[in-house]
């Protein structure tokens, strides 16, 4: 089965987000970047399915030239090839993002690769628009299930059994392929790229193109930090000597 997985490059924010001077972006001068967590699991799942059932895996991103780093990371854990929809520094809104991804999928199909399973993260760590998968599925006329935390092929690879968290348990869906699925972290434990994997990734094929950005219909104007907690922590003590104070707090909160 041929699988396409869409990933997004996001900064590793650490303990405190700092905004750029114009309040339109996160100041990333001192930050590293990563694949958004849900999508890291999507890439891992694509690799596992191909390892177990054959076929091919393709990773796609829409992002700045630097996002090649995240494509190579995916190739390093075993994805076969990459598609880079290169953008300038501007953020693309969800409709524009989905349309560009649909165009890329249709171009793939025209070139002979009809991806039977298209995987997304449930939402990106940064913008969290929760809608790219649904839009792509609708455009392609394929079934879509969101927030998936367990995925299995059934009927000899003709359909999927999918689990989604619901309340204290899980809801189960069964959909025929081809299908579009968005996944959540916890689906699997992604592997770390090995050194040979990183070397192989450098030689794997990467197709880059530069789609035009349509006028946004959901346009970010500015970012701001929510008001701080304003908390001033009460220091109960240092090391084991603090135990008595901790027990006093537990008693005060009625938790002892």
């Amino acid at each position: 089965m041929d699988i396409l997985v869409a990933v997004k490059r996001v900064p590793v924010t650490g303990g405190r987000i700092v905004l750029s001077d114009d309040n339109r972006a996160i100041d990333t001068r001192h930050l590293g970047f990563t694949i958004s967590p849900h999508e890291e699991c999507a890439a891992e799942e694509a690799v596992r399915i191909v390892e177990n059932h054959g076929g091919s895996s393709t990773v796609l991103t829409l992002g700045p030239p630097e996002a090649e780093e995240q494509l190579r990371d995916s190739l390093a854990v075993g994805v076969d090839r990459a598609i880079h929809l290169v953008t300038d520094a501007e953020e693309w809104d969800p409709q524009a993002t989905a349309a560009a991804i649909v165009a890329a999928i249709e171009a793939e199909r025209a070139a002979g690769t009809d991806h039977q399973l298209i995987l997304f993260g449930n939402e990106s760590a940064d913008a969290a628009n929760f809608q790219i998968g649904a839009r792509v599925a609708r455009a392609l006329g394929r079934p879509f299930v969101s927030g998936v935390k367990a995925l299995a092929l059934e009927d000899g690879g003709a359909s999927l059994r999918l689990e989604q968290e619901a309340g204290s348990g899980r809801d189960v869906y069964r959909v025929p392929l081809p299908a579009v699925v968005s996944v959540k972290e916890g689906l699997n434990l992604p592997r770390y790229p090995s050194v040979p994997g990183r070397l192989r990734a450098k030689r794997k094929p990467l197709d880059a193109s530069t789609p035009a950005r349509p006028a946004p219909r959901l346009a970010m104007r500015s970012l701001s930090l929510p008001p701080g907690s304003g908390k001033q922590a009460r220091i109960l003590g240092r090391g084991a000597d603090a135990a008595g104070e901790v027990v006093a707090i537990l008693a005060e909160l009625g938790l002892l």
Partner: protein
Amino acid sequence: MDALVLIEHDGGEADDGSLQAVTLARAYADGAVHAVLVGAGAAQAAAGGLGGVATAFVATLEADAFAPDAWACAVCELIGRLSPAVVLAAGSDRGNDVMARVAARLDLPLAANCTAADPTESGAAVMRVRWGGSLLEEAALVGSPVLATTALHAVAAAPREGSASVEHFAPALEAGDLAVLVTEHVDAAGGGVSLTDADVVVSGGRGVGSTEAFAVVEELAQLLGGAVGCSRAVTMAGWRPHSDQVGQTGTKIAPELYIACGISGATQHMAGCKGAKHLLAINADAEAPIFASADYAVIGDLHEVLPAVSEAIRKARQP
């Protein structure tokens, strides 16, 4: 200018998150606020008081189980009929899922997880959350009707009062609208207090050091009748299962007391525990960011502090 709100419900009662969406709808629209409900127990939930909703439209489907495309179809049909200026749902898993499908069907923009929205000439000015609530975004949405979901707990829920007139309708489904359908519900494996229900959650981070070293965290959690949590670094290291992970991409919790041990306080983690009523942070690094969000702080090695606390609890409980 009217509004339409998708109401999720469970056991014949409207969800709090949906009633929060009603609050935002009433602030946005100067006309009537209507509601749409789908699925088993919808009529009962509509009768239970929806905070001044004028008409509750109850969609009847062939299937009682959750079918997100059929739900989206029902919402779209009412949009065609009522021409609301704004359509809202809770920023819940299902709310975001169904509204994404509505937006895809109508090829309209959707702003997910909004804390505020105001009409503009071309659509709406919205405030929405990013990074699991660590960042706010002001955005301009261009389109009509305005489609949005409301960030959970951003506004108060509309009171469960008033009596909406109830109207049943059978949406004209497209072929394939029941292809995606919940076919089965699997209950969580029992055993122990769940992260979301526990009064006390004791979590360990990278500072714990290994799977085995979590014994001191488990011991304290057990003494307090609480649940064990962990940070993303711990799950990624394979020390604990992802079901224990507290954070933006893990479980969001709201215990009475959260005890964070050896956790630095990355935004990823804080997005999952900011609902805790009290936070006790135990960390060897006095400069750890987590102390800025803590109510109580112990500066020290968790491997020394936790056994001492457990011992002190046992002593305090001795008659």
